[in-house]
């Protein structure tokens, strides 16, 4: 039984004794695919009620993207802004639970470590990979210049910028390979 086709006499259903599938258009529980998420935080900034939050733990070297369905209004803004298509609104709507923790999804991503000093930076490894692929299309000099900066943490970047000749982009790249 479903209410896809309106019926003149049958208007009530045996739900929840029988399943009542919602229309496929329903905006239900948003789910982050942990394999695709790069931890960029675009969804965090777009989410109107702050249902998605991000936390950086430098000491552990991880970034946690956390989505709490108790606050979610199922608007789907996160879906629209995610550059990786990692977040998707599913068809699930039965979210009632006696345990609040069931309403949280965590995505834990390792932070990128500075190739010079080895300390964790504020961005994730996947973000770095993503940017490295993005700059493939740039002219080679520009690409090399950016690449040298991308792989460094903030302090190292600052010190290199003040002494630009000390370490060339290609040398940094060599370090990564090693």
């Amino acid at each position, binding site marked *: 039984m479903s209410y896809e086709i*309106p019926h003149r006499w049958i*208007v009530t259903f045996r739900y929840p004794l029988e399943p009542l599938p919602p*229309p496929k258009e329903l905006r239900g529980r948003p789910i982050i695919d942990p394999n695709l998420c790069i931890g960029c935080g675009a969804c965090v900034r777009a989410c*109107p009620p702050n249902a998605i939050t991000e936390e950086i733990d430098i000491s552990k070297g991880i970034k946690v993207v956390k989505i709490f369905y108790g606050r979610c*209004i199922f608007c789907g803004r996160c879906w629209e802004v995610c550059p990786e298509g990692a977040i998707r609104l599913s068809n699930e709507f039965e979210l009632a639970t006696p345990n609040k923790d069931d309403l949280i999804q965590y995505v834990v991503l390792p932070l990128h470590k500075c190739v010079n000093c080895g300390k964790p930076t504020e961005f994730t490894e996947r973000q770095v990979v993503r940017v490295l692929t993005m700059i493939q299309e740039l002219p080679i000099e520009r690409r090399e210049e950016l690449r040298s900066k991308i792989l460094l943490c903030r302090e190292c970047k600052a010190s290199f910028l003040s002494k630009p000749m000390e370490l060339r982009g290609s040398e940094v790249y060599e370090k990564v390979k090693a």
Partner: protein
Amino acid sequence: MVNFWVRRSEGIEREELLRLIDQDIAGLVKEKRVATKNFVVYVVDRDKVVDVVKKLLEYEYTRLSVIAGNDERFFRRDFSLTYIIAFDKQDLYIGIRTYVPPHDLKVKSLAKEVRAAWWHERENRDLYGFEFEGLDDPRKLVLPEYWPENVHPWRKDYPYNKPVADWREGQVDYKPIKEDKIDADVVAFGPYHLVNDEPIHWRLYVKGEVIVDVEHRGFHNWRGIEKIAEGRLTYNQIPFIAERICGICGYTHACAYCQAVESIGRIDIPDRAKYIRTVMLEIERIESHLLWIGIACHILGFDTGFMHSWKIREHIMHLAEVLTGNRKTYGMNLVGGVRRDILGDRLRKAFDYLRFMRAEYRELYNMLISNTIIAKRTRDVGILPRDKAISYGVVGPVARAAGLRIDVRKDHPYAAYKELDFRVPVYSESDVLARTLVRLDEVFESFDIIEQALDRLPRGPILADVGEIPPNSEGVGYVEAPRGEDVHYVRTGLYNKVQRWRVRAPSYANVPSVKEMLIGYRIADAPIIYASVDPCLACTERCIVVKAVDNGRTYSWNQLVELSRKISRRMGL
């Protein structure tokens, strides 16, 4: 005295009218700003503002729509008050603004002569600390009784997330103003009551069964949504919170807000988006009217009508779910257009549904209008005289039942309404029956509008490119919600945030006038009279606690409904 509506304005073009107004108030005006194409702001001195507003209200088809206070100390060290007057036949909103220095916030009150100003003045007194000289109602409007006197939460130096000092310490009970002065029994109607949209408290003073006076105290649920938006949300996040202002007509709020911002940014939204907005607005109207019809039948003891109406409503909710992804909070709007397209099989499905529902609704309609008991219970009950209706500035079905031919869809065309063909039902009896009939007729028109809009859906994109929204500009957005005109005043600030967002929902204009409707009728009629203005009836299921004391007797809500139904039975149901 105000001579409401003595000067003809119908047939006069907008430019011509602006010239007339310029002449009328020449010498009183310090500055004139054209904010958007149909929103003009005049700056006047504060001792002149009342005269100017009264002068403008002499034109036909004008209403005092909003009085928006604002804390502009950041820009120019003053507070400001903007009296926004709607000119319904010229598609024009005129703002009369006055600046008030923070050390002396006195303004003359308008509420005695223009009843529409009554709530607005009290609200501005609560939130900004304006003093209205001559306002004879000392009670708070939106803030609770225990709120400290000199703390005004909407001043910009009060952070949006600051809790008020511990309220349990200074708890003060509500003091009705008339209770001692009037020689009558008291029936408390609410705060928790089935027919109330929000917890609202009506104090009915009765002699025998007849209501002789009424007092209102509401806003128990007041949330300060506007402050949250001003404090932390960006332009594109606000449509979603705007949608949550009301559980029944949320989409109109999202639309009104987006239109206000679009008018500020001079954004022309794509045609397809306009049509989709129209479709969703009308789906919401049908849904809301069917809900109201059901509740009204229930109050009159006609539960078959209630079931039947809600059965049809379930279908329209399902249609909304198919088109938008949600039954109620559609989440369709962004500044610049809509987010979901109506494509392919959904379009076909919508037509199927509409055909089916129209047939069902016609059956319900015939059943209701041929029912003598509904006619008997509603005819000549809760009459709102025309002059009162004008003074209170009522909108929507309440105004149209009082013979005022106003409808934002026709008067201030927005979305795609200009290109669609529909009729606006108007009745002149101004009783509960007339209000019922207006709504019953409107549902048919809404079916027509949706079908036309879906039929003519133009091709193209659904979201416009939005450039930068100019800071420090202002605009109004307006939508004909199921309950009447819904106005949003938006003023943009720095850093992609709104500086002031004032929402005037239609019930804000209609509910004060219930006072006039109730006086002279019986207690048993009170539920249907109050329900007849269609205050959002969202929290129906959760309201069970009612204590009403009359001559030492206590009525529960069920007993009150029983009383109402007994009268129906006496009339021969």
